[in-house]
């Protein structure tokens, strides 16, 4: 495929993200620079529960504008292959998952988990014709209840993902995904836009079971004008929000952003720690992955129940789908009375859909030439700056982008109280690294 889209021009960032730069960051299909960057990483593709047993039904998956099919064969091997049969272009979703392969129901061509055609019934076996047919495929591995894929060049495949939420024992972690009907970038930028929390989510700190009760909530509620600090990290950014605490100290909430689209929100009290991945489906839709975990204890039944019910950063679904129950077709179940009474700030219930409703309202791909960023948006500005820098280095010089190195993935967010003159990167140095059996820094 020949890419005719935007390219990277030296020093070109201007005009509130020029259209060319906006296109460059938001387009992730095959052959695009940002698509090449996403294809450098292991990405969450499906929940392991979507392929619950050997020879279970295959699942259609669209990632980075490529239509794929995931299946689990007779021996438990996972495969992620081109959705369409090489013979006549039939969707293999209709296929029969049997005897270590997926058989097209049209003429019986059969493929294994690597996409290799292993049987063409109309051709003599001795002809070797089947061996000449191979569908594009990507590796698919299970880690932490998530099936991860790597869609880049095989010789550059990095080690498996090391995110802490995916490596702790299964009873300590819980992950969901939901469809977000917008480009990945505007969704991800919401995750590092710490200044919106004091407005959009202000009603939830004291009521949501996955947030309430932490001492830190008092700092949030008593100081609604935090001061922000943005610091470059090896994998992306630390975004610190500081509020006044006792004795002249500062209460810091430090969000981690690791390229290209991982964020981890500072914990509260002994609640689970949570965060997101935003993975492009195509240029106008993405998966919002939401995880909650605790590094040193199992999640309680009450916590898991609340997560399943769509509390915290999770969402309720339209039954049988991963589309949120509150979605754009029903105006996100807007409740003007709750908005007027202050029970919710926007009228939409739940943190996840409060974010998604506004991000989707921008349109499938927001026109960033019309935005008016302000000083508190420096986290977003810096993230774009780093993405552009990384994609340029990757495309022009083959430099692996930050976040591929497993060391960049062993990170934590932190909530911590520090003296007023201490850099949070220094004071929270240990707290920002994931260490087995060490409790998260939380207030």
């Amino acid at each position: 495929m020949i890419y005719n889209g935007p390219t990277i021009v030296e020093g070109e960032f201007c005009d509130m993200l020029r259209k060319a730069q906006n296109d460059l960051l938001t387009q992730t299909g095959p052959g695009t620079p940002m698509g090449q960057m996403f294809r450098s990483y292991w990405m969450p593709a499906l929940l392991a529960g979507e392929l619950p047993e050997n020879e279970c039904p295959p699942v259609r998956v669209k990632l980075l504008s490529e239509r794929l099919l995931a299946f689990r064969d007779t021996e438990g091997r996972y495969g992620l292959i081109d959705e369409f049969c090489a013979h006549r272009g039939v969707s293999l979703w209709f296929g029969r998952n049997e005897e270590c392969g997926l058989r097209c129901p049209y003429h019986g061509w059969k493929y294994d988990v690597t996409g290799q055609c292993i049987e063409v019934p109309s051709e003599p076996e001795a002809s070797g014709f089947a061996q000449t047919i191979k569908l594009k495929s990507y590796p698919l591995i299970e880690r932490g209840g998530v099936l991860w894929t790597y869609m880049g060049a095989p010789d550059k495949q990095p080690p498996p993902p090391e995110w802490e939420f995916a490596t702790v024992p299964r009873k300590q972690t819980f992950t969901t995904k939901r469809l977000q009907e917008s480009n990945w970038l505007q969704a991800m930028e919401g995750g590092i836009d710490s200044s919106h929390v004091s407005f959009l989510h202000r009603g939830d700190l004291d009521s949501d079971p996955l947030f309430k009760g932490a001492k830190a909530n008092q700092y949030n509620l008593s100081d609604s004008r935090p001061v922000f600090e943005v610091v470059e990290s090896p994998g992306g950014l630390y975004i610190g929000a500081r509020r006044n605490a006792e004795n002249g100290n500062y209460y810091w909430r430090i969000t981690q952003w690791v390229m290209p689209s991982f964020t981890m929100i500072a914990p509260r009290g002994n609640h689970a720690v949570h965060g997101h991945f935003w993975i492009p489906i195509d240029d106008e839709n993405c998966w919002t992955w939401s995880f909650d975990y605790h590094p040193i204890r199992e999640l309680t039944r009450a916590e898991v129940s609340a997560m399943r019910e769509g509390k915290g950063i999770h969402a309720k679904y339209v039954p049988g789908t991963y589309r949120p129950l509150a979605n754009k077709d029903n105006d996100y179940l807007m409740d003007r009375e709750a908005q007027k009474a202050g029970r919710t700030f926007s009228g939409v219930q739940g943190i996840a859909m409060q974010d998604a409703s506004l991000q989707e309202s921008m349109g499938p791909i927001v026109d960033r030439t019309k935005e008016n960023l302000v000083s508190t948006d420096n986290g977003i500005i810096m993230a774009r700056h780093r993405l552009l820098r990384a994609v340029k280095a990757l495309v022009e010089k083959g430099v692996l982008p930050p976040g591929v190195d497993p060391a960049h993935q062993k990170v934590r967010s932190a909530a911590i109280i520090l003296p007023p003159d201490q850099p949070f990167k220094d004071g929270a140095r240990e707290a920002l690294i994931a260490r087995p059996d060490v409790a998260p820094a939380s207030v």
Partner: protein
Amino acid sequence: MQSESARMSSAAEARFRVQAPNSKPRVIKVIALDALSEDVVDRLAKASWNQATFFTAAAFAGAPRLEQRVSKEGWLRDLSGRTRDLIDEVDTADLVVMVATPGENVAVAAMIGEACSHKRVMTTALIVGATSASDETLSKTLAQVRPWSLMVVIANADDYIEDMLSALRA
């Protein structure tokens, strides 16, 4: 029936967004707090900007303590070396960006910050060249700029400033 919200969120409807300008240019004053930052600001000033102007306060690094009653006249120089009145410059700004280098004396941040606070002008501190700075050095700089900055950015490379100013429509 499909809701208004659903239609508004579609790619087809996004084409109908009003094309008229939605803001006026903002006036941004960029001030180097020390001699090393002055080089960065000097380089930035050579680019083309809408409403950004560039100054140095490096010559006033030995700023008086805050409790001392001093005039806020002077305290700035433009890049051609002329002394400028701090209050006048702040008074016409929408945002003041202070650029500092770890390890340098940036006590003048207090004087600028106080003027901004008095005029209710937003302040951002950019600390450049932090990669090679020790935590102790960075800490000293932070102690001087934090009380007067509503946003602090610690950047590894100074090319970030240009991107930031562009993003802010400077």
